[in-house]
């Protein structure tokens, strides 16, 4: 049985998250920076009456923050009772993917990527990476003990 996944691009690569974890998507109109937050936190945005932090996935994945095009999207996801926005270069597709076709990401990918990628699969001829949202969002105490 296949399930719906939201697909998006970051630095030229394609990622997916289960559509069930996505609350909604917004175009990016700028964020209010919060001094003292980690570098990969772009800031906070107000969406549908709530304020959510936005993680710049480019920076989170070790790339430079880039000038954003009008295609940029905030994908608001939920995990562990938190709602957090993920900033992607674009998000255009919803893919129907078969969970049994997901394969564990190669070890080098896991080690090199801090475990952000949980598994990989094919969508047609393309390889897409399934994100581990808990890892991407980080632990509750990001500022350390």
């Amino acid at each position, binding site marked *: 049985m296949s399930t719906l996944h939201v697909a998006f691009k970051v630095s030229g690569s394609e990622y997916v998250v289960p559509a069930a974890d996505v609350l909604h998507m917004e175009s990016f*109109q700028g964020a209010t920076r919060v001094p003292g*937050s980690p570098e990969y*936190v772009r800031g906070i945005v*107000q969406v549908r*009456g709530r304020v959510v932090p936005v*993680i710049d996935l480019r920076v989170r994945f070790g790339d430079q923050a880039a000038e954003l095009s009008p295609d940029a999207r905030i994908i608001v996801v939920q995990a562990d009772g938190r709602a957090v926005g993920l900033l992607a270069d674009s998000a255009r597709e919803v893919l129907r993917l078969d969970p049994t076709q997901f394969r564990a990401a190669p070890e080098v990918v896991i080690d090199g990527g801090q475990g952000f990628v949980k598994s990989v699969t094919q969508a047609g001829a393309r390889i897409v990476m399934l994100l581990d949202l808990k890892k991407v969002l980080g632990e509750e105490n990001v*500022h350390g003990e």
Partner: protein
Amino acid sequence: VDELGGDLSLRTEAGRGTTFFLRIPLTITIVDAFSFRCGRQSFVTPVSIVEEIVEIDRARLTRAPAGAGRAVRILERRGTPVPLISLQQMFHLPESDAAVPKGIIVRRAGQPYAFEVDQMLGQQEVVVRPLEDALVRSPGISGSTDLGDGQPTLVLDLVALSGRVSAREAHA
């Protein structure tokens, strides 16, 4: 009430009267606040913690020796020296060149501290939502509000922020 995430309901019993139920989440507070700009960004701070707002005459500032940290500037207020804290430097905000910067004076443990800002915008009641997610929880930032431009505006606890400066001085 809807915008606050609360609800309003009422119940009427014949011959006894009507009860109104107004429910508002406790996590949201409404405070009287000053809004101001600094480093091309807007902020607000509760009126209740502000002792005074003064104009800063750059020519009359005294620069104390830097030592290990960065230089401390001193503002003279009616014969009392008040350390002047640059919000722009503290938050690493872009440089801005206000013609006449303002100083917001707060008091912590009996000591006055002045925060340099570019421009005062006004005073209004604002709804403060706490920043709950660990990613954006930060001492001295008590929450965010909406000044009507669709972008969140940070609510600053200048008293707590003044403590950050002296804590850093103590470490240096």
